[in-house]
């Protein structure tokens, strides 16, 4: 027969346990605890391991020096300062972080959604803050930047949204993955109505994000001159796979883009939009999400990729918790260590070895609090 314990009994038992624990926190257990902390620190913290850079390198030992590093900032969702300065402060903080990296990264990648509602003043504010980065800037567009004027201001400030470049033997491709079919003309929407519809998370009005036929064609041609063993890193604002449609964590022609990338030995895709620690691998394609400087999203209620180590639930009092910026360390083989520099938390590294081994090696530590 199972023993029934009343709420009160259980409460008293827990209470006794707590006090026993408090009493037992004598010197001996303290020393044990200290020693454990010290041991952990000794393993983790080699003499130059204070910066997130070194922490990441430590993940694979001294042989795993990356070929180069770049930093990232993403999803700042700026309003004008007089409307809401919290997100402005977030972007400022990220720029400050990146400017203090020593050594400086080769470049800084901005992952899209610089503005919240595509306003001229929001985009200008973002551009003005990003000008203070010490390292060169590469930038991608997000849907919040685009759907007020369909990219007019963004283009004026930053140029074309689809482009590629080579850096130290790696081919980088930047896509506009938030192309939506025209849902506004037939409905007679104003630009602001269109913007607000896209900025809304879950509505039946807007279309799905796509890369679209013209860009896919461009991509095919852009990659044509690269051999199958080329090192390729693709940036997209939305993840180039289908995660959760209700939240637009989704790219509708993802499979067609993946098919273009399939012939390569391995490809890294880095995306914004999801505001969270997110890791996935589909065949030869290794996917990494970017942190937001504005707010963290909860995890999708279904379909989470198995490789993802979910970050723990943010503290609602601390508007910075769950946000951050980070770095990408590119290895000679083209795979990357992804450094999540979570503000007010220890940095977390999803290493090259982790995705390469399908999660069997170098697993990042699972946070000690529940995800959501």
């Amino acid at each position, binding site marked *: 027969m199972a023993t029934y314990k009343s709420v009160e009994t259980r409460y008293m038992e827990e209470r006794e346990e707590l006090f026993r624990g408090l009493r037992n926190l004598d010197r001996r257990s303290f020393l044990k605890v200290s020693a454990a902390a010290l041991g952990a*620190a000794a393993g983790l913290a080699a003499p130059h391991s204070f910066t997130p850079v070194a922490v990441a390198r430590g993940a694979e030992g001294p042989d795993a020096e990356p070929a180069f590093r770049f930093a990232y900032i993403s999803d700042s969702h700026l309003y004008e*300062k007089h409307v809401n300065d919290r997100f402005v402060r977030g972007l400022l903080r990220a720029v400050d972080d990146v400017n203090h990296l020593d050594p400086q990264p080769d470049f800084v990648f901005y992952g899209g959604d610089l503005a919240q509602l595509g306003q001229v003043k929001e985009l200008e504010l973002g551009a003005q803050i990003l000008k203070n980065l010490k390292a060169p800037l590469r930038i991608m567009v997000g849907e919040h930047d685009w759907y007020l004027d369909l990219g007019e201001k963004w283009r004026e400030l930053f140029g074309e949204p689809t482009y590629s470049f080579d850096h130290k033997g790696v081919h980088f491709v930047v896509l506009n993955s938030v192309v939506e079919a025209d849902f506004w003309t037939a409905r007679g929407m104003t630009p602001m109505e269109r913007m607000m519809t896209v900025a809304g998370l879950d509505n039946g009005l807007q279309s799905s994000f796509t890369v679209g036929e013209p860009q896919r064609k461009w991509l095919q041609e852009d990659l044509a001159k690269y051999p199958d063993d080329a090192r390729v890193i693709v940036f997209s604002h939305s993840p180039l796979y289908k995660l959760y449609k209700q939240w637009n964590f989704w790219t509708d022609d993802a499979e067609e883009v993946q098919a273009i990338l399939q012939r390569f030995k391995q490809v890294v895709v880095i995306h914004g939009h999801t505001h969270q620690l997110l890791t996935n691998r589909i065949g030869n394609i290794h996917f990494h999400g970017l942190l937001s400087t504005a707010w963290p999203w909860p995890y999708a209620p279904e379909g989470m990729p198995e490789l993802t180590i979910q970050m723990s639930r943010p503290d609602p*009092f601390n508007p910075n918790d769950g946000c951050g910026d980070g770095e990408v360390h590119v290895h000679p083989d083209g795979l990357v260590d992804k450094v999540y520099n979570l503000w*007010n938390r220890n940095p977390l590294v999803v290493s090259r070895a982790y995705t390469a081994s399908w999660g069997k090696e170098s697993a990042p530590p699972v946070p000690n609090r529940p995800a959501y």
Partner: protein
Amino acid sequence: MCGTRLLHSGPRSAIVGLALFALLAAPPPPASAAEEPGRDVPRDEHGAATAEHQEQVLDKLMPETDVSKPPPGFDPILWAAFIPEDNALTPQRVALGRKLYFDTRLSDDNSVSCATCHDVTRGFTDQRAVSEGIGGQLGKRNAPTTLNAVLLQTLFWDGRSPTLDHQARQPILNPVEMGMPDGAAALKAIGDDPEYQKMFKAAYGREMNYEDLGRAIGAFERTLVFMDSPFRRFLAGDDGAISAEARTGWELFNAKGRCMTCHPMNPSNPLGTDNRFHNVGVSARHQDFEGLARQAIKLLQEDPSEQKLDELAVGTDMSELGRFMVTRNRVDTGSFRTPLILNIAITPPYMHDGSLATLWDVMDHYNKGGEANPFLDGGIEPLALSEEEIDQLVAFLFTLTDVRFAEENQRQLGHQQAVAKKERPIRDEAMASRLTLPFEQRVMGAKSTDQ
């Protein structure tokens, strides 16, 4: 690592600084006795009231009580949880601890005792920015009060000690505090005293030893429960116990001021501390976190002893790393334990380095959103408090003093008011009202996001 979690539970928090604040880093010189009207008490070479005088004051503050019983108003089970199993409170132990607390023989040059920096007449602190040890050496940290320290989960600004019994042994051996080479030397200094031999025997039933010395001091300190404040009476239902100004301050404390998240104050937790560690940016005014952290990691790998940690934390610039020195967690950089705020009015100056002279300065610090740095706790935000609201918050803080210190509380009010009237070095209204944003000057220099 679950034991570690027990000790350092809770989110770690962090902050960043402006170079121009380097100017403010130098702590103000301690006010001499001559500048303090109404305080013509006999003093020793370190500025503390003499042991004789302190003991007289203490006798008046604390008439003899039965130390085996919890202090008035305490739940016996709760109280028992704060008393180590191997150090139950007995009159013999408390008496021994009290004698040790005032005994300068425990220092290498016979000039410093616990009471030098935890002076009964100064809110059980030294009311100086940082403490003075043997040979006039200055440490890097502000002496926290021993009042109500029994109720803290960890001791020292960085929580590197779990109990008062353990804590009490460290300053005696710290080279810039009491400077004894080791515990044996401390014992030797008092070992010839037959009274001590007798008292140790009576207290612990064995020969004198250094651990019992720490236990006895801890036992004495556990009797220093001073929580009977006007605010406590207000919380218990006596609306008139504090002024209307202070009552508004209490509302601000719980709302616009955002104070209560780290300084919870309620009938079941009257201390006003979350017992956690936060970077609020004080050290960011004079920091080079990265360089200091590398140095600390290297030195603590060479010598991981708790004594080394104590030396580095108290005596070197690595003090500014705060909790990081204990956990070596990056996120703990520049974070310090939330101090309890009972009796806060009588323990100036403030913060881990004593860099803020008055409670008005403390309000100015938080009002401007702390000091931007890479580890700044995200909960620290500009508050847009008006001058009137700052006065109300300070008025509230002055109601947290135990009534037995009413006179010192009044003296501090006058003194701090006068200082604040003359100078408010941290005040920054542009930051407080978000005309200038945190991190803006660091990132954009003289340019602003308005341009």
